[in-house]
């Protein structure tokens, strides 16, 4: 089980980095290139070398992780993940440098649907449905309050052993529910804001479908965490559920990548943004562009235009509660 918990993220990160190079029509490694360039001799060579080096690196990391786990160094294996991400980033930047000489001035063509926002309703309904398990868990916990132990575990190490506990208080018991509701609410706000995002209806629908799936996964995760005080008496379930959540999360990532490739092949012009407004291929800063959300060049969905203060405010709304929770946990 521990092997799966450690090796699965390494595998997912590897697949994501392998896929992001060529997910959008006319864009390779974040640079604007002719649409046919990825299938040209030079384009194929850059892609082939990036993928070959990446696969070898991924295999080496998985082998090293497996050896570290076998020798009882689970923490060492976990720290290998950020190192792997850094190395992937290095490989990516090498490929970016090799692609840049083939970059062209992108055609500043933009398209938009003149139809109503059809995917908004499913988005709202999906997020509301995701709140139902949390509400049911609240009711269940309330009805079984007396069965909740006075002290119960809330955190587990990579070895599956509990290493953090809390008491049976309203905050201690219902905190996962509150966090779940807040996070799903935030996902809903993003889904509604996508109405004002650049790009066609296809990309908007894809972003929202991913958000619905993520909110369902978050709902399941927080419901399960909230019910742990009642479940854990039958044995440690944390590692099993963590592997399950990781597998479903990986499924969502792979599905999104496949859908993005299908969208790429539909031939619609992509983002119509100038290359010099993209930093590291992922941060967009263009004060001349009124859009807050623009299609990502690295990955699936939309990203923020950091030239607008509202983007920073949105980021603060997301990060401040996380920072507060981390500080709160550290203080305790």
């Amino acid at each position, binding site marked *: 089980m521990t092997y799966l918990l450690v090796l699965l993220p390494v595998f997912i990160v590897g697949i994501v980095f392998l896929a992001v190079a060529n997910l959008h029509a006319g864009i390779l490694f974040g640079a604007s290139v002719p649409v046919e360039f990825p299938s040209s001799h030079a384009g194929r060579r850059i892609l082939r070398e990036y993928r070959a080096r990446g696969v070898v690196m991924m295999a080496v990391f998985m082998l090293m992780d497996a050896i570290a786990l076998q020798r009882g160094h689970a923490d060492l294996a976990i720290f290998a993940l950020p190192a792997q991400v850094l190395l992937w980033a290095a490989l990516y930047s090498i490929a970016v440098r090799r692609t840049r000489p083939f970059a062209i001035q992108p055609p*500043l063509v*933009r*398209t*938009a*649907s*003149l*139809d109503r*926002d059809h995917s908004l309703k499913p988005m709202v309904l999906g997020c509301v449905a995701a709140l139902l398990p949390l509400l049911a868990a609240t009711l269940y916990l309330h009805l079984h309050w007396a069965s909740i132990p006075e002290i119960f575990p809330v955190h587990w190490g990579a070895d599956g052993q509990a290493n953090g506990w809390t008491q049976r208080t309203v905050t201690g018991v219902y905190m996962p529910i509150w966090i779940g509701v807040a996070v799903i609410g935030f996902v809903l706000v993003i889904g509604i804001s996508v109405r*004002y995002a650049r790009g066609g209806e296809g990309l908007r629908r894809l972003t929202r479908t991913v958000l619905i799936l993520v909110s369902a996964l978050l709902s399941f995760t927080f419901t399960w965490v909230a019910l742990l005080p009642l479940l854990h008496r039958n044995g440690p379930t944390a590692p099993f559920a963590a592997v399950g959540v990781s597998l479903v999360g990986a499924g969502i990532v792979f599905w999104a990548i496949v859908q993005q490739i299908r969208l790429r092949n539909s031939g619609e012009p992509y983002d119509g943004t100038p290359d010099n407004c993209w930093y590291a291929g992922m941060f967009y800063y263009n004060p001349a562009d*009124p859009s807050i959300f623009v299609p990502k060049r690295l990955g699936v969905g939309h990203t923020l235009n950091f030239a607008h203060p509202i983007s920073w405010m949105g980021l603060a709304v997301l990060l401040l509660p996380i920072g507060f929770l981390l500080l709160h946990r550290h203080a305790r």
Partner: protein
Amino acid sequence: MNGAPQIRIVLDGPTPIYRQVVDQIRTLCVDGGLKAGHSMPSVRQLAANLGVHFNTIAEAYRTLAVEGWLEVKQGRSVFVSERREPRQPTRAAAAQHSSRLRHQVAELRANGFSPEWIRHEIESALGGPE
């Protein structure tokens, strides 16, 4: 992707964005791509989707409303109008459009398009269902 009517603008093209938006929506209305009663995206939404200034789309919608193609209802709802037969054009309007058409034909001839091709295109444009 889903067959929904689309608008496509070229930011660095010779035609102003406002004009591209007006021309394309009008063409869609004339060709039947946009039916009467069709609910249009709000000014703010279309501006954000295209990444252009709010005022550009507001001005385009205003022009199309004056021409009778769009109807802006209370609040932000914008619909394609049930357009009645246009009133008889004035002599001034006829002269202005005649001049524009002649300029356009002259430009096409200057760029090497044959009179047959121009005639075919005009007939094809006139042949669309209204």
